[in-house]
């Protein structure tokens, strides 16, 4: 009976703790990608300003409401603009930003491949 009770305790407590830990990891990840708009070069995670502390509470609230990481970023973007995100989302304003390194990589790769073929 004792073992059964212990099993029940572990069964019910362990998932709650792991869920809380998951939420904490997600919260840290999100706040590290949000810029503290009133600080100099600090993320919301790093800052202890009034603005950053309130923002951390809102992130926590949104995670508990069941919003995904992307939805939370979109939410803050709608309130403060794209500048709040350290990692800008893929949209028509950032196509060039995201695709240029890939383009350079492929052009460079093609040149290397061509030269390699030529020497062989």
């Amino acid at each position, binding site marked *: 009976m004792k073992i059964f009770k212990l099993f029940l305790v572990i069964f019910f407590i362990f998932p709650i703790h792991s869920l809380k830990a998951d939420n904490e990891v997600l919260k840290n990840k999100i706040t590290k990608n949000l810029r503290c*708009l009133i600080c100099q070069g600090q993320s919301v995670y790093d800052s202890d300003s*009034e603005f950053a*502390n*309130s*923002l951390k*509470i*809102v992130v926590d609230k949104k995670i508990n409401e069941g919003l995904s990481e992307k939805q939370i970023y979109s939410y803050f973007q709608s*309130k403060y603009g794209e*500048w709040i995100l350290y990692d800008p989302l893929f949209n028509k304003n950032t196509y060039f930003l995201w695709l*240029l390194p890939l383009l350079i990589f492929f052009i460079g790769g093609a040149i290397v491949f061509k030269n390699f073929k030529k020497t062989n």
Partner: protein
Amino acid sequence: MKNKLLPTTITFIFIIIFIVFFKGLKDTNIYTPETKINNEVPSLSVNLFDTNNTVNTIEIFKSDKFYLLNIWSSWCVPCREEHPILMELKNNNRLKVIGMNYKDNKDNAKNFLKKLGNPYEKIIFDSNGTYAIEWGAYGVPESFLINNNKIIKKYIGPLNKVSIEEINLFIK
């Protein structure tokens, strides 16, 4: 033709990089927030300062009048500076001034209003600053001009004579 491909590609890439960096040089590295916005008033359940009752923000800003939502705090020095301007705006019957008390001690806030006057028709009590985030605010003092359930202008920092003139132009 084959020999020209490599220098042409490298030149092309360098031109692109040059354009990007040259354009970047002209941009200011000081963040300037957008003040002309056209967002809808966020629908939130908020606590009122006087009664502790919970109301929805849509209820507060429901009529087609102009509203000025002012975020303030008793510990904020620039809020004291702009207070006479808010008292002046209170007398304008085309505008309703609504307050949002930000991360404050209620007794200190009450003393602040007792000493300097109360320009607010209603005051929202934002104990942890989350309502302000929902409004897209940065801190105190900050004001939002609202009409027809839309935020039409945001004033970051204390209101001054220039902002008053602008508000008067909007509500004329």
